[in-house]
């Protein structure tokens, strides 16, 4: 990280770290995924619960599978996007907390890569399940 020397304005030697030009894209994606979550989660909850309130039968795996058969492409797309939005929004939120709590560059980098791997892992598992359902 670049250190900018600003000693001339203070009573003793001071440097202020100037971070690389980063963060803009993540911030935009955090906002976009929040809107995505609102939409995709609403669709998901509707088809999982509200859409089946008229059925007296208890919620079963067969009922949960039904939307994939009725709307094969659209519903799978919704669930896939929901998975991506939830993973990104949640894990980037954790990254934000870590960046708030530590200024240690190595720890930050390690956390970012760990969260990326975690996200990819969960995404892989989620899409594997999704592919089995469609």
């Amino acid at each position, binding site marked *: 990280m670049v250190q900018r020397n600003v000693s001339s304005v203070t009573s003793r030697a001071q*440097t*202020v770290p100037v*971070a690389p030009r980063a963060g*803009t894209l993540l*911030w935009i994606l955090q906002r976009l995924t929040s809107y995505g979550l609102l939409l995709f989660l609403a669709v998901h909850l509707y088809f999982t619960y509200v859409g089946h309130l008229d059925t007296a039968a208890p919620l079963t795996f067969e009922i949960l599978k039904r939307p994939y058969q009725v709307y094969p492409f659209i519903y799978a797309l919704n669930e896939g996007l929901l998975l991506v939005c939830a993973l990104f929004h949640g894990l980037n939120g954790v990254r*934000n907390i870590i960046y708030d*709590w530590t200024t240690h560059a190595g720890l930050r980098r390690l956390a970012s890569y760990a969260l990326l791997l975690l996200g990819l892992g969960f995404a892989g598992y989620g899409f594997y399940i999704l592919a089995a359902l469609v």
Partner: protein
Amino acid sequence: MNVKIRVPRYEANGAITPVFQTYTVAITPTTTVLDALNQIKGHQDGTLAFRRSCRSAMCGSCGVMVNGRNRLACNTRVAELNSSEVSVNPLPGFPVIRDLVVDWDPFFAKDAVMLPYLISDQTRPDDGTERLQSPSDARQIDSPSSCIQCGCCSSACPVQWTNSEYYGPAALTRSYRFVEDSRDTAVKARLDIVGTETGVWRCHTIFNCTSDCPKGILNTENIQALKRKIMLSRLGLGRIEVRARVPESA
């Protein structure tokens, strides 16, 4: 009427845990917290350390935390607090030098990073007078220009408490003041400085800085305005206006 003033006392040179001391001060309806501190220092305990200068909310020296909120001691009346015991603490998040005196060096170092001066590639008027602004352009920067650098906002920011690298609302509002200045032409450079992980993207819109600003500056909103400008310019959706507009009357 008597009021108890509770102040943390630190040994000079680095004791971490303060010892709290309570003083009883006679107040009138117009007694300010600074008056009370002056009474203590003048008549009860000359070793109490605190900063003050103008006594008229202009210099920003006497920012302290009073009953859990950051305020200027000189324009906070004790009677307004409706409390028989008033707790006065140094600004949180700043390194304490002694008692109510905090270290301002990191704060002003961040301010200096913001290039807190007018940058213009326009030549000055031939007659040597100042660069003119239209009244509406001047109104744009009225609010952020009224910042007195008291540190109440940056000290109230929870992100600043845990992340010493974050520039903080005072420095970001300073940047906003010049970004919005119609005479300034270094907008892109300024946005590059604040559009970083230690800049605007660390702000989580907690609004403590806005609620604790003794000058009523909308710090959080200013930071959001900077975010919008940076976002639009980096997405290529907005153009950074290189201004230095000449007012109609000039």
